[in-house]
């Protein structure tokens, strides 16, 4: 904001200073090439309806004995008075439930794939505390068998992040959970990048133990601030360059710096901040740093102590992505409470259930169920239509894709799960999963499901792994 103001001011001052300045024609700059672009194409789909189902639309509404109509990969209509076109495929949803496809905002599938071993551990570039220039998508192994397992758990979109060893871990990528040889074929079209930042114990442990910066939480903050100062300078160079071109003035193109480019794009509002942060007072410091450098934090991840500052998080419009019950593995995870998610929701802050686990991602519905039950045991009255938001619309908001997925409203991408029953139960199973209207998982017709290259013939040369 400030930078733009100054640029404007100097421009008008110089106009005043010159007696007869001739308006120069703006210089046409070659647009920046889009990089590693999504080549995602929806799989073949047919128009269909699911009838007689209990439908949770993801925005907080529940429809009983209702119909969902999907056409051309988009949600057409949902509700009790949907006029069903004749002659289209119909699934009976009696006794079953329908939700938007689940979205995991915190996954390391593909960058920490299964089988887990050093040779494919690609999530943490632990060579320096600021690796904002690395991109998770450059390391995604699309044949990670974890993708298929997550799909069987109803997960249709996921954000893959770098790990938390560094203050700035690198760019995140949001994927559609479809089989694909290339990462680009999974890349969620139009989803913004995220930047993974990390508070607390991890960066100071990784570098402090090598007697490098940062060794303390003080050093962490020094690292963030120094980086943002440089990023602001870098951004100004580019802003000046573009402004000059607009005014018809030829200027040398600034030299690209991949680390600073990522940070500058955060300051430009094009990359969202996903900040691994456990403790309440550290989150409050991170909020002040965001104020200092004029960027918005999208989401605090893990956010074990969000319940202590849920009002502040609501005021600042920052999401918290949380586990239902993990605790005690580190001191900064010692104050975990099973009601954290429910308490954040209760404060009208954006609550998200995340996994950070290739097992947890298969059971996000169960994690939500536990969080809901814990809140209700303490006196809240959360129901399925509330809890589903934690892995759908709220998650979509966190990733900046809330205009595309996360609810079953008209014209949204038809990412849909048909559950065997109320999904908030250990017994619930995703029976059918649709992505952009295409049936990509069918529990009743396994032979139609995709199988990863890894799984093929690995346990039985002639058979399937699962």
């Amino acid at each position, binding site marked *: 904001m400030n930078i733009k103001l100054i640029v404007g001011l100097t421009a008008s001052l110089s106009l005043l200073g010159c007696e007869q300045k001739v308006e120069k024609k703006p210089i046409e700059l070659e647009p920046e090439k889009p990089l590693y672009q999504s080549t995602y194409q929806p799989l073949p789909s047919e128009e269909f309806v699911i009838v007689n189902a209990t439908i949770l639309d993801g925005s907080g509404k529940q429809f009983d004995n209702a119909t969902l109509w999907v056409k051309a990969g988009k949600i057409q209509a949902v509700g009790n008075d949907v006029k069903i076109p004749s002659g289209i495929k119909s699934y009976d949803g009696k006794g079953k439930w329908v939700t938007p496809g689940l979205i995991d905002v915190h996954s390391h599938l593909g960058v920490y794939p*299964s089988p887990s071993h050093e040779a494919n551990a690609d999530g943490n570039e632990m060579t320096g505390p600021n690796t904002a220039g690395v991109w998770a998508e450059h390391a995604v192994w699309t044949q990670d*068998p974890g993708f298929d397992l997550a799909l069987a758990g109803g997960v249709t979109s996921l954000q893959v992040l770098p790990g938390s060893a560094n203050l700035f871990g690198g760019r995140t990528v949001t994927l559609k959970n479809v089989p694909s040889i290339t990462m680009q074929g999974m890349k969620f079209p139009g989803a913004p990048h995220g930047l993974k930042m990390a508070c607390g*114990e991890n960066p100071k442990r990784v570098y402090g133990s090598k007697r490098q910066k940062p060794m303390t939480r003080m050093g962490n903050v020094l690292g963030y601030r120094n980086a943002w100062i440089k990023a602001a300078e870098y951004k100004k160079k580019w802003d000046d360059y573009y402004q000059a071109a607009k005014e018809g003035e030829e200027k040398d193109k600034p030299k690209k710096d991949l680390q600073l480019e990522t940070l500058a794009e955060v300051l430009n509002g094009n990359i969202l901040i996903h900040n691994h942060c456990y403790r309440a007072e550290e989150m409050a410091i991170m909020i002040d740093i965001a104020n200092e450098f004029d960027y918005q934090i999208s989401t605090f991840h893990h956010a074990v102590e969000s319940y202590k500052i849920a009002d502040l998080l609501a005021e600042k419009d920052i999401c918290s992505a949380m586990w239902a019950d993990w605790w005690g593995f580190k*001191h900064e995870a010692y104050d975990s*409470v099973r009601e954290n998610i429910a308490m954040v929701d209760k404060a009208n802050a954006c609550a998200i259930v995340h996994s950070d686990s290739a097992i947890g991602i298969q059971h996000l519905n169960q994690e939500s169920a536990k969080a809901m039950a814990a809140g209700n*045991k303490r006196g809240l009255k959360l129901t399925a239509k509330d809890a589903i938001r934690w892995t759908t619309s709220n998650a979509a908001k966190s990733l900046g894709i809330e205009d595309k997925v996360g609810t079953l409203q008209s014209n949204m991408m038809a990412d849909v799960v048909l559950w065997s029953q109320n999904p908030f*139960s*250990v017994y619930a199973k995703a029976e059918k999963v649709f992505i952009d209207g295409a049936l990509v998982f069918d529990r009743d017709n396994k032979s139609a499901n995709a199988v990863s290259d890894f799984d093929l013939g*690995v346990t039985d040369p002639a058979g399937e792994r699962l």
Partner: protein
Amino acid sequence: MRLIKSSLALSLLASLFTFQANAENYLIKNATVHTATAKGTLKNVDVLVQNGRIVKVGQELAVAGKATVVDGTGKHVTPGLINAATRMGLVEISAVANTVDASTKLENMGASFNISPAINFRSTLIPQNRINGLTRAIVLPGNGKSIFAGQGAAIKLTDTLEGLLSDNVAQVAAYGESGAGQAGGSRASAMKQLDQALSDADYYRKNQTRFMPGTDFKLSQSTNDLKALFPVLDRKTPLVISAHRADDIQRLIALANKHNIKIVISGGGEAWLVADDLAKAKVPVIMDPMQNLPRFESLAVRLDGAAKLYRAGVKLLFTGGGSHNGYLVRQSAGNAVAYGLPAEAAIEAMTINTAEVFGITNYGQIRVGMDADIVLWDGDPLDVTSNPDLVLIQGKNIPLVSRATRLRDRYWELKGNHEQAYQY
């Protein structure tokens, strides 16, 4: 509101009664009782607890003398649950080494490493687990420098040293990838170490007088470690061995037969592939049914593995949730049921099966004469939406309070930066 009032009232009432005579007398009325016996699940049944024991299970029981009557209508009773593989009491914060006592780096301590003296019964893990329905745990050591990790204990989740039920319920060893790592990089050397140690222990036991100071017999382990294997050779305690790969498990069965010892497979990712061998050899399996990520030693791991083992007749002991959330063994069991395991078999895998394999007596079933380790659940005990309304450990009512619930209550109403510290 009704829910919270009744549960608050219940715990208030319960905590009052713990300070009175006859505190251990409870009559739970009209509940669905998962007995973990051949009787299976009983509906609309009462359970009477006196002096820490279950004294009656039946319909429309009368109160004999003083007893707290608890309405179990619409609720479920199970034995207090047990997790078959934890580090409970051995770890407070996993990443803070000073608070972790699970293994030793000493060169000459393997099988003789006994973790019992290290168990901290005032750990915050104990209340957090018991208020969520776990009343007992098997506590096992981790591997240090030997392929033998040492001896494990059985505990009840109380605050005092009396919680130690047995200081030696099992010997623990590593096989598969981790055993190979312990033994220089190959399963072959790991197998040789296990085999040699058992042979040496047997030889040492039969020839102890020949091992006086000054003799120069070379043994593969220290005499202390060999002595620690005697209970295994005597079939008094099982050898719990971690393994996943199907043929690893088969070779361990052969090892057990050779030395005539009892083994328990821990992990068992591919155990279902050799379920018949396990059933025939009567080798139980400790597993977390939710662990379904393929590793190169468990490529065939799958969510219905537990159900397949059960159908073949293998005794299952469940673990899950690590130590901090050892109570989540219940979620793991529920998932096994979702993938084909009968519900009653899942309850048994968190109660009586573990009790039997590790020799814990008077625990693990709802029947007359058993210790009153009882949980009254507000719903299906295998579902993730259920929570305990009442937890008894040997008849003692456990207030449903932990450090986490104290923090929750402190911050339930956000009052401001300074005021919060006075909420307790």
